[in-house]
């Protein structure tokens, strides 16, 4: 059999590279990359394709602002996705999860044939964790969240997920939406040869109009008013004396603060 998978990918700022200055993240000149959890989803998709012995992995993204999306999505192609598609429009700058889900759902319809839609459980930047579920709703598909193992047979998809004190196995008919957690796999690092090939793979670019959507209707319904690093007051308590005395004083201080013995 063959499996066609669409992986919905968000391009995120490389969070590790962000500096905080005056409590604000410095986003100027920050590199963008395919989100970490989306890399897990891509890896899972490629493993399913390869295990099935055929099929297509398509990386689909919505350009939320000027995120060098065309460059960044090539990372997905270099990892081994077969095709890529981008939905972009100035109206999508700062798009909220509802709008992103609408654009993705319309693009998925446009692509047409697929067995599985994969998402990361959330994006590494805003982490709303909503988009996968919203797309499933818009397309009327079954959805399984937080999968740490996926297998596909002709009967459908089977996923395992960890529920803290138990392991749950769920099954759904195809096509289905699955969101994955990071422990599902170790995403591969693109090889030089695959990076060279990535530039030649098919890359579709659509506007909302191409997908029959009204761009104005996708405008964000909410704004980020402020984004400040948390401020923490430090107690600046210095314990002196022997090691034993310091340990006692330290434990007492923790008890007094209500950190211990709750």
């Amino acid at each position, binding site marked *: 059999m063959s499996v066609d998978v669409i992986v919905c990918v968000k391009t995120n700022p490389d969070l590790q590279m962000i500096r905080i200055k005056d409590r604000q993240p410095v986003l100027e*000149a920050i590199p963008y990359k395919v989100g970490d959890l989306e890399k897990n989803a891509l890896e899972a998709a490629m493993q399913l394709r390869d295990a099935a012995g055929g099929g297509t992995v398509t990386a689909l993204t919505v350009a939320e602002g000027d995120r060098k999306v065309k460059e960044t999505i090539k990372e997905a192609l270099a990892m081994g996705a077969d095709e890529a598609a981008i939905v972009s429009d100035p109206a999508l700058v700062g798009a909220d999860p509802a709008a992103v889900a609408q654009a993705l759902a319309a693009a998925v319809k446009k692509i047409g044939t697929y067995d599985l839609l994969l998402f990361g459980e959330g994006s590494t930047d805003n982490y709303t964790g909503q988009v996968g579920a919203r797309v499933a709703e818009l397309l009327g598909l079954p959805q399984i969240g937080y999968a740490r193992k996926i297998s596909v047979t002709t009967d459908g998809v089977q996923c395992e997920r960890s529920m803290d004190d138990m392991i749950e196995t769920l099954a759904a008919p195809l096509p289905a939406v699955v969101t994955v957690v990071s422990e599902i796999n170790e995403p591969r690092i693109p*090889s*030089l040869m695959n990076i060279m090939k990535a*530039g030649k793979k098919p890359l579709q670019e659509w506007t909302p109009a191409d997908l029959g959507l009204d761009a104005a209707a996708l405008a964000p319904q909410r704004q980020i008013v402020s984004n400040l690093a948390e401020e923490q007051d430090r107690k600046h308590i210095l314990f002196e004396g022997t090691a034993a005395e310091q340990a006692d004083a330290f434990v007492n201080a923790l008890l007094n603060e209500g950190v211990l013995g709750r």
Partner: protein
Amino acid sequence: MEKVDCIVVGGGLAGLSAAYGLASAGLEVMVLERGDYAGAKNVTGGRLYVSPIRELYPELWAEAPFERAVAREWITMMGDGAHTTFEVAADRFAGETPQSYTVLRARLDQWLAEKAGEKGAMVVPKMKVDELLRREGRVIGIRAGDDEIGADVTVIAEGVLGLLASGAGLRAEPAERDHAVGFKEVIELPPATIEDRWHLNPGEGAAHLFMGAVTKGMLGGGFLYTNKESISLGLVVGMAALKQDPDQGKCFSLLDEFKEMPQIRPLVAGGTVAEYSAHAIAEGGIAQVPRLYGDGYVLAGDTAGLSLNALVTVRGMDFAIASGYHAAQAVLAAKKAGDCSAAGLAGYEQSLRQSFVLKDLETARHIPRIIENPRLFTHYPQAVSRLLESVFTIGPQPSRRLVKTLWRGVRKDFLNVATLKDAWQMRKL
């Protein structure tokens, strides 16, 4: 094996300059850079002298993301209990076509990578080259991970350590006598504060070097360059001297002691440290420049040992860009002639010999050995400061005539066997 016209190992200024030239002429060129982006692994002091390279890619420099045009040169000689600072400003330093700019590499190299990309070069970041592929002595391409890619010519611009080139026997391994370690902090300060502290008009910059007590007598010195909204403050110490002297304490702590010195503290006051970095620097001069080309390859930038510490001027990035330019021209000529052997690439070294790169290194041939003299970093900064201190001192006893004071100081500190010997050596500077 997949093949391209030219592979450039290393997306620093030398490699990107070569790639820009090659791609502009329509060659298929691939730059492999191990950092997340060009500039991610690079460190400069830093100042780039643009006047030597302005004519090489004249279209580029007007839009380059430089920090500040250096309008003032400061030098501080530090002794015990006294120090002397010279501040030199000249119209030609800045003005219409400034001779040098302060730079930060993450910004500058990314920009040059974009420019090379616009010309058609394929710049691949996050990609480390593991090996130079050789067949019968000829460099035929590279291996990165499990992938091998062939090239007619490989431009090796992998940086100062030259691990690939020395691994393949194309140059010697780096030796401690010829290298220094530079380490610095980038310290954020408001632009107006920077301009106040170094007497600058808005947008202008300063370069400030420190000699003497900062390195505790070891070969090297302190540097401070003003960026737009930060300063780069650091030290350079010769590795041989550093290693010889375990009593001087741990290398990194010198920078903290430097920052605490009363001459420096007010300059960095109120600043926020934003980054800490370190890098090796080739300081051996022309004597350690290896053979620059061979069958299927050329060496460029730091890998070729193209840098020069002449005490008051410290250069490397202009050499890197120029060597990349000349490497590109030589590769283009070799490709045109259909001969990428050593004979076909020999034009590279010829053009570097005719350019400022090897000419300036030749002129400075004796500097690396002269500056091994520890008195340069102990006695002289102290003596200059002591001399000037005596001129400005009024004590309880009646003063001497100025000339007498000066003469006493000069005779004591500058006219003895050791200093005359030094002067004889320094005639080669």
